């Protein structure tokens, strides 16, 4: 990763989209990254298997926060059945950083994705 990538991530991180709790959510999922103690809680409003609203809360690093924020944006309007087929490469393209060689940070980038995958098996 380049220094400029972090500057870009910081600007997203300052006001991440979809951060917070949606009141009318009917799905709540929590997951913890055991390696670093970071956690994420995802709230979804799902109607007829379609994600209408999505948000997240949690204490995480830049990568996990920005990844969660952009992933939820991507998922709005999509069918929950699509979640199980999403690969980590999608996250890399959403955050525009290839972390495929960075084993420890892949866990950060995929924290929200794995939380969703655990739920929608």
């Amino acid at each position: 990763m380049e220094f400029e990538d972090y500057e870009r991530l910081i600007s997203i991180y300052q006001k991440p989209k979809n951060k917070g709790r949606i009141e009318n959510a009917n799905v709540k999922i929590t997951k913890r990254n055991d390696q670093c103690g970071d956690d994420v809680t995802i709230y979804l409003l799902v109607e007829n298997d379609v994600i209408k609203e999505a948000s997240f809360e949690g204490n995480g690093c830049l990568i996990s926060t920005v990844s969660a924020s952009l992933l939820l944006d991507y998922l709005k309007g999509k069918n929950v059945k699509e979640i199980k087929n999403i690969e980590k490469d999608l996250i890399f393209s959403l955050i525009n950083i290839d972390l495929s060689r960075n084993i420890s940070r892949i866990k950060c980038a995929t924290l929200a994705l794995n939380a969703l995958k655990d739920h929608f098996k």
Partner: protein
Amino acid sequence: MNSSIREHFPIFKNNDFIYFVNAATTQKPRLVIEKVKEFIETTYANVHRGSYKEALEATERYEKAREHVAKFINAEPEQIVFTKNATESINLVAYGLRKKYKKCAVSVAEHHSNFVPWQQLYDFSVLPIKENGEIITNVKNKDIYAFTHVSNVIGNINNVKEIMDFVKEQKAISLLDASQSINHIKIDVKKLDVDFLVFSGHKMMAFTGIGVLYMKEPILDPFLFGGQMVSHVSEKITTFGNHPRKYEAGTPPIIEAISLDAAITFIESIGYEKMMEIEKKLTRKMIKGFEELGIKILGQENENRVPIFSFNVGNLHGHDVEAIFASKNIALRSGFHCAEPLHKFLGYEKGTVRASLYIYNNEEEIERFFEVLEKIKSMAEKVK
């Protein structure tokens, strides 16, 4: 200043990265690399077995390595056991004492390697520390006290004499973890007067795969069973060899022992006095840099420490800080540094970032480190 020392390390010729991860593992000087190469290319064989010339020579050199280690810490060769690393040395002691002893205390500042084995096998207590890292000896009547000489997170040097006075009052057994001290401070086991002392080779410029256990008396039951450590084996019964052999089951780390022998030669060629002088200068410059940026480091900002500095930058996550440094070719470590109880005890729930320096680091590197840290600090100010 220490450019001549740096020249002994081929990696810095091939790579212009700033290596500040020395508390995790150290780089290897040419002397160590070449000694091992020469050994493998001329006389490598298994030890304590054949009567062919190479086996005799390999055995002699393996035992010479043991003698060298012994002399280096003012012990006798039969008091030195070669293991895989400090972790295995500690496990050997923990397993080797468990039939006779039940109660153990360690400090909250221990590396997991000197924490988890005792926690798993003994009636276990934890000694607190002061903010400067100093161990508070407030748990009496234990059979064993295991504690670190230098914290791998705070970098403070514990007062072994004071702690040992307490341990002796309790008529207890002592284990000192010298993994973070032996590469900075002269160790004399007679002066320290501990029962057991452990360290790893790879943190003092030797190869990975070699650790040392010093034991004042051979009171341990064997830990690993197998070849080499036995005297006679029959279908019904096995008798064990003498120490230190009975603690070294299987083919030992022969090549790695040769590397440790050479690493000690390298340290002796510089001398601890010179090493400490270099490190004091680096330490002063690091402390000044942190002060100028208003970034708090764990422990005390004095010189009773080795150059290990743990810190956080605003609300930025340690993994991010480490990664931003990595993008500028500066190698640090983030997380709990295998000392999660210590971080939780001091209130660092998410861990810290650690910069740990060694004798081949220099002031220019420290300047580059602080240039990047200053940028990260202004990034952090944008994040609530």
